[in-house]
């Protein structure tokens, strides 16, 4: 199955290659060829790979996904306003099947100091702006899916924040997976470059439309330059017909800060790879994750934090609630390199299992090669607190309501750090809605 999928996708890539933007740009060709080669040699991951032991992608590889276009796309202004978060003041960009849609975006309203561009356009018009960054965060491609993304590299979104610019309003990017008539895939490659001392919040939302199955194989590269502070909310709200393979690769320079939220509320099969390299002294990363799964959903969060320089801080806090036959994986690897003295690192993964058939495989992994460090990690798996449940019921609160209240209380503390309030309220409401039906 894996081998056939590799052959099929490589053939599709070959057919498509001449139409990809800037087909003659040498460094870009090299990047694409590197992806092709890596996919050819390594193939797609299987349960035999240590990093994929608990996540079976056979069901995804069996399906023939066609590269998505915006030809018969049913995303319109009404869809956007339906999808928009009530009372969230933001700058909005809409991307359908990996392709930015100018007329649905208010990119013209984006203030000076933030440049939002289509990757395909920029590769043609000003590739010099991309060359120092593109592909640099993931050498080599960690697995077949990122390799495939590199092989098809062409579409996606580029966000550049000018040095010293500070913004209060978040930038919202809505990634729509649209599959009206056939199983459709998108392979967006996004790049976010936060200039020195800049500050911005980016909200990346993944939603789906259409009756067919979708595959979003997205790679996002992030560079946070010295003393910049970037916040990235990743919110997965696709459908149960959605496959989502997401890679986020961030490099942090001296004194910078990166706050990343991975919130998974939907999706049939979701795999998030997140790698953060703390490449400058005093950099700080805060990772927070929340996954809610039911039915036969499968959610895999695979995170790696590399402390490469001294005096860096990492906090990682992931929580999950699993019901029915849902399954989740958490693998949190933290590497403290020999030079990374005075590292402070803290990691936790807490899980609430609501059914006997739900399963979590959690694996914290600390590798410390420096001696002057402060590191702590822990994982818990538990059920609802029976004492708390009885306490609430003894006050007249119905059992189901009491359960929901306790689950919400468990999940919500991940969301408390979200701002602005309208975004936090939206997320709290979404969690509540999920628990209610």
């Amino acid at each position: 199955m894996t081998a056939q999928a590799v052959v099929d996708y490589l053939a599709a890539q070959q057919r498509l290659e001449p139409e990809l933007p800037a087909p003659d740009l040498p460094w870009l060709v090299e990047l694409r060829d590197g992806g092709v080669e890596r996919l050819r040699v390594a193939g797609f991951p299987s349960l035999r790979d240590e990093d994929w032991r608990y996540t079976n992608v056979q069901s995804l590889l069996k399906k023939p996904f066609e590269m998505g276009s915006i030809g018969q796309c049913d995303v319109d202004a009404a869809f956007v306003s339906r999808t928009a978060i009530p009372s969230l003041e933001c700058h909005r960009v809409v991307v359908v099947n990996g392709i930015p849609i100018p007329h649905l975006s208010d990119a013209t309203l984006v203030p000076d100091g933030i440049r939002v561009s289509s990757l395909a356009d920029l590769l043609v018009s000003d590739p010099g702006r991309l060359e120092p960054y593109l592909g640099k965060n993931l050498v080599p491609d960690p697995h077949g899916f990122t390799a495939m993304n590199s092989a098809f590299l062409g579409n996606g979104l580029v966000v550049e924040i000018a040095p010293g610019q500070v913004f209060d309003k978040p930038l919202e990017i809505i990634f729509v997976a649209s599959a009206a008539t056939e199983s459709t895939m998108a392979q967006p490659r996004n790049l976010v470059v936060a200039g020195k001392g800049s500050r911005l919040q980016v909200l990346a939302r993944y939603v789906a439309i259409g009756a067919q199955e979708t595959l979003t194989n997205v790679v996002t590269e992030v560079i946070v330059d010295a003393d910049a502070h970037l916040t990235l909310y990743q919110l997965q709200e696709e459908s149960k017909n959605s496959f989502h393979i997401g890679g986020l690769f961030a490099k942090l320079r001296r004194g910078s800060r990166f706050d990343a939220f991975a919130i998974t509320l939907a999706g049939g099969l979701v795999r998030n790879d997140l790698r953060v390299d703390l490449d400058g002294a005093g950099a700080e990363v805060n990772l927070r994750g929340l996954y809610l799964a039911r039915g036969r959903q499968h959610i895999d969060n695979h995170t790696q934090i590399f402390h490469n320089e001294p005096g860096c801080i990492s906090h990682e806090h992931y929580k999950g609630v699993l019901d029915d036959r849902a399954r989740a994986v958490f693998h949190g690897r933290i590497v403290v390199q020999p030079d990374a003295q005075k590292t402070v690192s803290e990691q936790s993964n807490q899980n609430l299992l609501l059914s006997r058939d739900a399963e979590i495989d959690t694996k914290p992994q600390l590798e410390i090669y420096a001696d002057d460090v402060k590191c702590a990690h822990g994982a818990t798996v538990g059920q609802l607190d029976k004492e708390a449940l009885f306490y609430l019921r003894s006050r007249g609160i119905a059992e189901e309501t009491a359960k929901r209240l306790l689950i919400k209380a468990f999940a919500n503390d991940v969301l408390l750090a979200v701002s602005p309030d309208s975004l936090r309220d939206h997320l709290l409401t979404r969690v509540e809605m999920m628990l209610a039906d």
Partner: protein
Amino acid sequence: MLSISDLMVEVGGKPILKGINLDIAAGEVHAIMGPNGSGKSTLANVLAGREGYDVMRGSVTYGDHDLLALAPEERAREGVFLAFQYPVEIPGVTNVYLIKEAVNAQRKHRGESELDAIDFLKLVRQKLQLVEMKEEFLHRPVNHGFSGGEKKRNEIFQMAMIEPRLAILDETDSGLDIDALKVVASGVNAMRQGDRSILLVTHYQRLLDYIEPDHVHVLANGRFVKSGDKHLARELEEHGYGWLEEQADSGAGQSAA
């Protein structure tokens, strides 16, 4: 109001209550005293509907209801309130949220509309004063990080908000210093009225100096061994439980023979 008849309860196959009979009329305050392990808390928990207690025999009638057939939340909505011996910490749920839900659950059950925000806040302020609690308690997570005394006061505060018909106080006095005990007692006394019954479960006579019961019952080894008025509590204070426990043991021997 409450009638317990020949109640036998086991926990994990072990008999704890071995045939309890008790009638509490509306407006009465009953105190159940007894040494550790006598079954006092078991009785309180069985009445509130906690899991893990197997009723082997007997019945509990509350008003027109077979109390044991009701779920814990149904009992609460019918006016049964348990002040916990160990109030549970619930991080992530604020006190004010819990109380609002609790009060509105009662009101809805009685066919009344929910309290509006202003009336609710007025009532909250009034009841907070009763137990000398600051308003900031409302916005803290339920019992989370509260001191022992704050937890117990919070129980009485909730009771005052909910206004139950049958209040069961399970060792509400344990772990309280004398000042906190007085506050809790005056909170309870303020709630005494003709249509409200109160069942105090306590190890020590101390609480009964401040809340004067109409009846006192001594529980030992799962049975009531003596009942009387408030003077019985004094006697226990002087002589301890030893003499009554012996009586219970020999009594058990006689009835078995």
